[in-house]
């Protein structure tokens, strides 16, 4: 395989993220900053996690339960990070609102909040894809490809790219759901993100079984689709319930 293959894998993993970035995030500088902050957050969480787990690595292959513990702790930790991120965002929102008052602009409306949460989620997803897929992709630009023993049907890079894509979708859109849930204190939306995250991570455990990736990877994609659909429904409902933002914008443009 050559450069073409490497680029292809990279685009599978990050193509949707790139189009989201170019279409939505890059237009507003503040969203880009949010994305960078959220990426940094995720990186720091990963470093802390790996610092904790460094002692126990490498795990002797064969047993699956250490991986289960690893994913469970990681998911728990990252959901905690999400809460911290939410706190920070809340503070920043207050500041933005007061800033908007001082220059007599409308406060952040619902669309803005959703855009910010989208950028935050995209940051998490991009960080995941970058560190778990893109950074291991260097050999794919060379002449060979790589198969993992347990997954002999698909090249390793393809599997990790697809998994990264799934996680990217999950991270991005569950962040929107979670932020909205925190904002409206809706319990079901609040627990949606951790549950989806947990299920998705558990699904990657299927890959530990011989040829498990044939089942695990599509299931993960289904999980991503479920997240997307849930987010879609939720944002539709939210939009119907409060239409003020668009009206405000229309007033402004008139």
């Amino acid at each position: 395989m050559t450069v073409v293959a490497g680029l292809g894998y990279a685009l599978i993993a990050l193509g949707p993220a790139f189009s989201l970035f170019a279409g939505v995030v890059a237009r507003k500088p503040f969203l880009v900053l949010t994305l960078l902050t959220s990426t940094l957050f995720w990186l720091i969480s990963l470093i802390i996690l790996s610092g904790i787990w460094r002692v126990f690595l490498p795990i002797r292959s064969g047993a699956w339960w250490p991986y289960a513990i690893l994913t469970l702790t990681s998911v728990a930790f990252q959901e905690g990070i999400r809460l911290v991120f939410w706190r920070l965002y809340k503070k920043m929102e207050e500041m933005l609102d007061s800033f908007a008052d001082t220059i007599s602009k409308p406060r952040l409306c619902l669309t803005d909040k959703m855009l910010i949460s989208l950028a935050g989620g995209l940051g998490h997803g991009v960080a995941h894809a970058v560190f778990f897929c893109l950074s291991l992709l260097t050999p794919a630009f060379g002449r060979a490809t790589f198969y993992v023993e347990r997954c002999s049907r698909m090249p390793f890079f393809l599997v990790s790219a697809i998994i990264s894509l799934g996680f990217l979708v999950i991270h991005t859109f569950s962040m929107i759901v979670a932020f909205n849930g925190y904002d409206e204190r809706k319990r079901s939306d609040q627990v949606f993100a951790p549950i989806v995250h947990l299920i998705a991570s558990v699904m990657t455990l299927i890959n530990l079984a011989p040829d498990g990736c044939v089942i695990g990877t599509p299931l993960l994609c289904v999980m991503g689709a479920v997240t997307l659909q849930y987010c879609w429904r939720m944002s539709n409902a939210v939009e119907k319930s409060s239409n003020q933002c668009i009206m405000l914008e229309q007033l402004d443009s008139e």
Partner: protein
Amino acid sequence: MDPAVGSPDPAPAPGATSTAATVLDSLGAEVLAVMSPVSICMALVVLLISLLAPPSSSGAAAAAPPPVTAATLVYLESPTDTPGQKLVGALLDAAVFVALVAVVTFVLVALYYYRCTGFLKNYMRFSAFFVLFSMGGAIAAAVLRRLAAPLDAATALVLLFNASAVGVLSVFASAVPIIVRQGYMVALAVIVAGWLSRLPEWTTWIMLIALALYDLVAVLAPRGPLRMLVELASSRDDELPALVYESRPTVGPASGSSSYSSAMGSVEMQPVADPGRSGGNQYDRVEQEDDLSHAVVEMRDVGGNWSGIRESSSPGGSMFQLGNLDREVPMAVPGQSSNHGGNSQHAVIQIEQHEEGETAPLVSASSANNAVPNEEHRQSSSSDSPLEFEMFESTRGIKLGLGDFIFYSVLVGRAAMYDLMTVYACYLAIIAGLGCTLILLSICKHALPALPISIMLGVTFYFLTRLLMEPFVVGSSTNLVMF
């Protein structure tokens, strides 16, 4: 691109048009105007290094001897040395390098002090030409060789010479579009960083840390050379005689371009006329007169020394200079329409300062108009405009020294020789450090070194990533277990 906005987002943002609907639209553009060229520069260096890396082999085949530069005068690392030897040698190298840099900076400051501006400019031009022509040529040749793209010598020389000539012209000439100038600044940084990243590993790390410390001292110490340079330049109301990246709004980037051009097309004399019209919300007459006089000074300055000293007035002469000032206003305070003058903008900044300071850098592009009122608030400081060498908020947004570009890129390039994962981590760390510096900048309003926070964070993250994260991530993702 418009349908792409509509699909993931239930309510498409009509605010992307001229009437900015929310605060979100233009907030942080200043910060991004600095971060994006830094990112581009780092990305290019990483690309260059991974392209030029010897294919299909690791350290052993990197037989090309590292160049003898100022940084390896004392000690040249060889792979067989013990860590102790390497450490001592690298420390010596770094000390010599930093001492050289310090001496050269002092000489430059002395030259500037005795008003040898002509010599300085020509020296800068010469060094830009040298970098572009010889070092850039060498790098271009290496890239061509690597890509196996044949190019005859005559064509290559002509192309190279033309490119370098334009680069030299763009360094200090005023008639060059700002985007060309910025492009050449990034190109210079990429070339020098690509060159410096050939240094041996230990030397690179120690040198980066030493330079960060030197930067800290040189900018913040009362007699630091860079600080003296900046204060001199601002006391003469002059541009810095150095290679500095200016994040003036170009017509190119992102969303706001239409508003810039429209604002630019409107009224050129806005900064002079405005304070009289819209002022008086917080400041009394005296300050307004101050404002006026400053604007007049600005104009006279443009008229008088425009040809020689003002390295960066925009194309078109004095009228455009003012138009440029005006252009700054709608960008600096997000969404503010262009008939608000400097005074109201200053008021915004004052209010912001009472707050946490978190959002402050995003709005703190002070225009020249409030530089004068600012001075009255800070009687103690000897400098008279919000200034610094490394980073600098002034009429034209934030300025960042070219050295910062170079050493950020050297750090990322060194990380690129290990793995892509360290590259991303270092990139994020450097950008975070830059963001922190910008926040600090908006709080303390004077010269700040841009290297220390970023370099320290970058080095820390590099080693954390390399030692802690990589085994973890590789271990779990080669088992296809992710979370």
